[in-house]
Each structure stands twice: as structure tokens, then as C-alpha cells.
């Protein structure tokens, strides 16, 4: 059995292994079941003779039962295949609708935002953040002279952005003049900027 599993596509294997995990069981449901069992009359043994008669040699159903079963299965398939959600939309429709609502309208014009860091000893400084995929090479800053001030202007959509400076390609430094982002779990704090929308 496991040989067959291994011949599966790795993604499908992963789905199967995740599906094999136990599910959380509600103890109350189990209790209710046992209560129901206790309320039932005791099951009776089938008489030997009857059992012999009923023992199936093969799964043979009378014609009407077969048709009913087939009809039931077809209906089952069609209903399941449609997978209608509560409000009548299909899962894909619902996904798109929710996507649209998560991208709420913002002022369309991005604003040029100035970032500045005083770092006289740095050989090079760049800016990383959610606006450039945290790519350390995407937004180099330029040094404005001997006082070690590094500057860059970046067009940013109005709203909340998280960012950091990167010194010499490896050292992440939060902006001392900005609020800190909640601990990012990677061991280096980042900063937050909230860019205003265009003035009306």
C-alpha cells in the first residue's frame, strides 16, 4: 500500500498525509451516542437458518434497487459537484468577491516618500520593505556627502508600510525616527510608515 502512495505526485501525497491526521472529536457527541445506544433495545441474534439464507455470495441486488441506487448516486454526484455556498455563489465566485473587498479603494496616486538615515560608517545602505518585496538590492540609497546622511525617495501607495534599512547588505536596522513594527519574529525590528492619501 505504501509503495502505491510513494508513486503518487508529491503534492497529492502531502494532501493524503494531512488528511490522515486525526480530527478533533467532540466528547459531547460521543456521550450522546452512547446514551442513544443505551436507550435502544438489545440487538438480537439472527437465527442460524436465517443467516444462512441471507449470506451474500456476491453483491446481487434486485433490478429496482439497483436503479434506485444508481439514481441516488447520480443525484449525489451532481449536488456535490456544484458545492453551492450559503448565498448561492460557487466557491470560486466567493473567493473573487472576497478578494475585491480585501483590496479596498485607496487614493490612486502614490506619493513620493523620503527615507533618510544617518550612518557615517556605512559603505552602502539600501531600503527594504513590503513595497519592494524586501529585496535588499532593489532600492539603494545615496549618500549626500561627508556627514553620512543616506537618502532615497520612493513612491508609495497611501497607507501602512513596513520597512527597514539594510547596512552593507547584511545588517538590518529599524528607522530610529519611526514607530517600530510589532516584533517580526526574525530577530530584527522593522519600522512602520503610514503614508497619507492625496490632499483633496
Amino acid at each position: 500500500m505504501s509503495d502505491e502512495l510513494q508513486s503518487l505526485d508529491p503534492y497529492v501525497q502531502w494532501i493524503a498525509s494531512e488528511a490522515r491526521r486525526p480530527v478533533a472529536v467532540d466528547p459531547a457527541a460521543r456521550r450522546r451516542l452512547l446514551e442513544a445506544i443505551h436507550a435502544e433495545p438489545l440487538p438480537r441474534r439472527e437465527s442460524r437458518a436465517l443467516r444462512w439464507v441471507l449470506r451474500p455470495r456476491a453483491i446481487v441486488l434486485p433490478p429496482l434497487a439497483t436503479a434506485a441506487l444508481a439514481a441516488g448516486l447520480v443525484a449525489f454526484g451532481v449536488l456535490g459537484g456544484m458545492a453551492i455556498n450559503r448565498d448561492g455563489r460557487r466557491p470560486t465566485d466567493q473567493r473573487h468577491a472576497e478578494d475585491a473587498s480585501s483590496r479596498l479603494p485607496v487614493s490612486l496616486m502614490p506619493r513620493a516618500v523620503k527615507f533618510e538615515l544617518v550612518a557615517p560608517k556605512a559603505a552602502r545602505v539600501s531600503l527594504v520593505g513590503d513595497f519592494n518585496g524586501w529585496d535588499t538590492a532593489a532600492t539603494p540609497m545615496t549618500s549626500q556627502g561627508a556627514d553620512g546622511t543616506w537618502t532615497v525617495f520612493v513612491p508609495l501607495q497611501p497607507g501602512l508600510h513596513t520597512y527597514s534599512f539594510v547596512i552593507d547588505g547584511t545588517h538590518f536596522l529599524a528607522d530610529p525616527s519611526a514607530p517600530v513594527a510589532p516584533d517580526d519574529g526574525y530577530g530584527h525590528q522593522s519600522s512602520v510608515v503610514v503614508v497619507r492619501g492625496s490632499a483633496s
Partner: protein
Amino acid sequence: MSALRRTIGPLTLLLASAASAAAQDSVLPARELDPLARLNVATRYSVEVMLDSAKMLGLPTRVLESTALEGIAKRADGRRIVTQVRLVFRSLRDARAALGLSASTDELTAAAGALRVGITNAELSYLARTRHEKQLTVPLVVLADLVTRGVPRDTASQTIFQLWQRGAADDDFLGLWRGVERDIVSGTAPGVALLNRAREIPTRGSPPAAPPAAPGARPERSENPNL
């Protein structure tokens, strides 16, 4: 592996607007078309799972992608990245539950951050109930920052809530933040610094019982991002 277009979407927008804004030359190198490809397979599956769940739930997937990309940039190992993305995912989900469907992406992101530093769902719900068309983003960003800097959580949340209820605007919160930060740097205890600076914020509009009036016109500002 084909390109992840959902990653490309917002970046393409950025490039387009960079051209129109004629501001700078931050152009993405071509190799970044599929940044998640740098994750190992198991990590990538887990991250994709959460992105997919987020999409189904109407949660902002870009925040989760950004979390993963940040981890890659900071050279975190796969398990760390998955843990962090999961943490952010759950906080976004809880934030959605607390703030409701009308919350913007930014508010959700800020609220999720506040939850991660220990603000409770109930506190968030309270803020959401008293919103009256104002965005929660800035107060929550400031709140999370203050707690991270050492202001006791209850002090921070109570103070921010009071200011919020009294009609404080984004500028007030940012000004407050700047003052507190300065004080902490010069040695004042964080909680004390906050309470002192909070007293400087005027009450705007009507008394607390009524919804706060809209804040007055903002003065002209420079391009400083930390307005």
C-alpha cells in the same frame, strides 16, 4: 515554475505609478518575478496553504506574502518563516473578527500587530464600535509601538483609548508618539512619558458622550514620512 502573478500584481502597480509620478528609479530586477521560489518545497506548501486560506477568508494576502519575503531577506529558516506567517495569519483573522467586515486592509494590519503585542480582542472591538468613520490605523500603530518600547500594556491601551474617545486625530497620535519616544530616549520611564505627553493632547470637538467631531484642517507638511 511559473510566475506568481499575485506577487507581481501590486509590484506592477508600483512600477506603473513610479513612471507616472516621475519620482525615482526603484525598478525591480527581473529575477524577482517569483520570490517565493527561494523557499524549500515544504515551506512553500505551508505558506501557499495560508495564502490560500487568507484569500478565502478575505484577509489581505499581501501582508502574509510580505512576511514570508521579509523572512527570506533576513535569512530565516523555513520553519521560522512558516511560524511567523502563521502568527500573522491568525492575528489578521482575529483582527477581522474584532473589527468586522468594514475594516480596511491597513486597519486590519495595524490591528493584527496590536494583537501580537498583547492588546485583546475585546479592546479592539471596543475601538471598532466607537469609530465613527475615522481610521484606526495610526492609533493602533502608535499603540503597538509604545507597548514594544516598554509602556505597560494596560497604561498604553487605556491612554490611547481615552485619546481616541476624546476625538484625537492621526496628527495628535503621531505627535504624541514623537514626544514619548524623545522622552524615553532621554531616560524617562516609558509609562510616565506616555501619561505626561498624553495630557498635552487637546480634546477635540464635543464631550466624550457624543461622537467626536472631525478634526480641523491639517497644516502644510513636508515630504517627511513621519508626519
